[in-house]
């Protein structure tokens, strides 16, 4: 018998209560893994998309909402003349519910611009010109919508023929419906409006020069922001909101977990007052009793964390395959997130054990023995 045997024995003596406590913690941890995994997945998706399109700097007005506000398309011409800009292209992107899909990304891209160039045509053809009322679908969008070349897709009130299927080389690209900017503006009633200008800089432009470019853009477009594509995710307000929501919900779940473990540990300490009295009477140090209670609660945390991460991964996989999410967010099954979650759970266990441990260490042996 070791000290660990003793710790383990007190958890196994009340299997139902231990089990229920584990369920409590693991649901909390599962919420953390799922929510944060979704948020990270979304961020990673956006970063991959910008990379796949070949964008260095994104100009938009990100104040509020997930999709930036629209602005006048004349901005693009002004931005294109700035130093170190090689190419600039206008985009009007919206998230809309399309037919049976609750939410789809629809990207109206300036015809001939570089945002069209990196996608590879798998089937059918590209739109013939800027004015053709037709769409091409990313592979996942085609799958989600169950469309093939020759079908039509209803966007707002217009029925648009699907003329091609493309591989966009990033999850978010593949989950998108593409059409010419002109047509997009017409269909969504945004004549002359765009909400992104994507910019390519001269190759080998230094970070400082890119930052200077961003400041120059801010000069001519004060209400908007120019962001280096690798930093879009870190700085945009929408992502901050998502992050804040996912972490605060997680925090709540964790607090519930703490209360659950604390309650259980208080109960075990109360009902074992007599036994703690015995331990004190046979010469156990108060320190050892504190260690025993803390180890018990840390072990509850660890087990809850492991189960919770398992449930969280299951949740992520399930969500990732669900219709609203598929092709739009690829959940991030990040090992780091899992380790962090397990660590959080252990810390939760230890914190929850502090008060019960302190209480049990203050018992007078003779009084505890009489209880």
């Amino acid at each position, binding site marked *: *018998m*070791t*000290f660990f*045997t*003793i710790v383990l*024995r*007190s958890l196994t*003596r009340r299997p139902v209560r231990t089990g229920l406590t584990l369920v409590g913690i693991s649901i909390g941890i599962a919420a953390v893994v799922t929510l944060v995994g979704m948020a990270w997945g979304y961020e990673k998706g956006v970063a991959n998309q910008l990379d796949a399109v070949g964008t260095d700097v994104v100009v938009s007005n990100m104040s509020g909402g997930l999709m930036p506000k629209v602005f006048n398309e004349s901005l693009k011409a002004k931005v294109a003349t700035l130093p170190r800009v090689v190419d600039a292209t206008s985009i009007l992107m919206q998230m809309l519910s399309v037919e049976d899909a609750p939410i789809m990304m629809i990207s109206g891209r300036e015809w001939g611009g570089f945002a069209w160039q990196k996608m590879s045509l798998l089937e059918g053809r590209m739109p013939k010109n800027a004015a053709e009322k037709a769409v091409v679908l990313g592979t996942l969008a085609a799958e989600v919508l169950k469309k093939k070349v020759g079908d039509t897709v209803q966007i707002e009130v217009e029925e648009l023929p699907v003329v091609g299927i493309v591989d966009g080389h990033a999850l978010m690209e593949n989950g998108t419906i593409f059409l010419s900017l002109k047509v997009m503006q017409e269909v969504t009633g945004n004549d002359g409006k765009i909400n992104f200008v994507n910019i390519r800089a001269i190759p080998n432009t230094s970070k400082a020069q890119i930052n200077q470019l961003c400041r120059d853009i801010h000069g001519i477009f004060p209400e908007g922001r120019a962001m280096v594509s690798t930093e879009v995710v870190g700085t945009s307000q929408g992502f901050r909101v998502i992050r804040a929501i996912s972490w605060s919900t997680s925090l709540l779940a964790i607090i519930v977990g703490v209360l659950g473990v604390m309650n259980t540990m208080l109960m075990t300490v109360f009902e074992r007052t*007599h*036994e703690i*009295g*015995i*331990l*004190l*009477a*046979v*010469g*156990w*140090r*108060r320190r*050892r009793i504190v260690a025993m209670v803390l180890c018990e609660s840390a072990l509850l945390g660890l087990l809850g964390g492991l189960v919770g991460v398992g449930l969280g991964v299951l949740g992520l996989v399930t969500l990732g395959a669900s219709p609203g999410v598929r092709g739009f967010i690829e959940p991030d099954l990040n090992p780091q997130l899992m380790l962090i979650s397990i660590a959080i759970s252990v810390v939760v266990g230890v914190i929850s054990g502090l008060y019960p441990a302190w209480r049990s260490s203050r018992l*007078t*042996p*003779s*009084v505890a*023995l009489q209880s």
Partner: protein
Amino acid sequence: MIYQAIGLQKQFDNGKVAALRGLDLEIRQGEFVAIVGQSGCGKSTLLQMLGALDKPSAGTLKYRGNSIPDLPDPAAYRAQQIGFVFQAFHLLPTFTVLENVQIPMFGGNLSRPQRKAGAAELLESVGLGHRFNHYPSELSGGERQRVAIARGLANKPGVVLADEPTGNLDSESALQIIDLLLDLHRKLGVTLVLVTHDLSIAARASRIIRMKDGRVISDQATPTN
């Protein structure tokens, strides 16, 4: 002198209950002392003070010349110097007999096999060699008290404090337990302080101390011993 109490007092409930009211007592190394007295006269309270399970309210109480309430490490004192035996056995219900006896050994620097071997040896010596893996609830009262005695001896203490160890036992088991305690006292030379209501048991001690209302009212050597 192993224990020396002068004017020892213990109050409970903020002074409303006085369990010990200026008790004077001396116990020498290797003695077998029986403590008798009416219910509520403070016998258990005295044993708790001797065993550092609680602190006196006033007076002096010394173990080998050192003040017990001021011991720097009361846990080590309880673990190394004292073996407790209680009327209600006080075994841990979720641990086997062999495990219960090992519980006091955790403070020392024995290895796991050493603890196990030591506990097995102690259980053999109290006649429970065949019960290692039973839980306390599966044992008779007499057997439980043997486990408690084996546990009390786990760290080879110099003193055994027994508070009505036979109080919950039938007369036959009671006799066996007393024989076992006496045996330990004789063979190992442990100082044995035994609280009892049974005068025939008390008569086997070398000294009988009578208590009343928290004081010693008589202290006599028994003629036969």
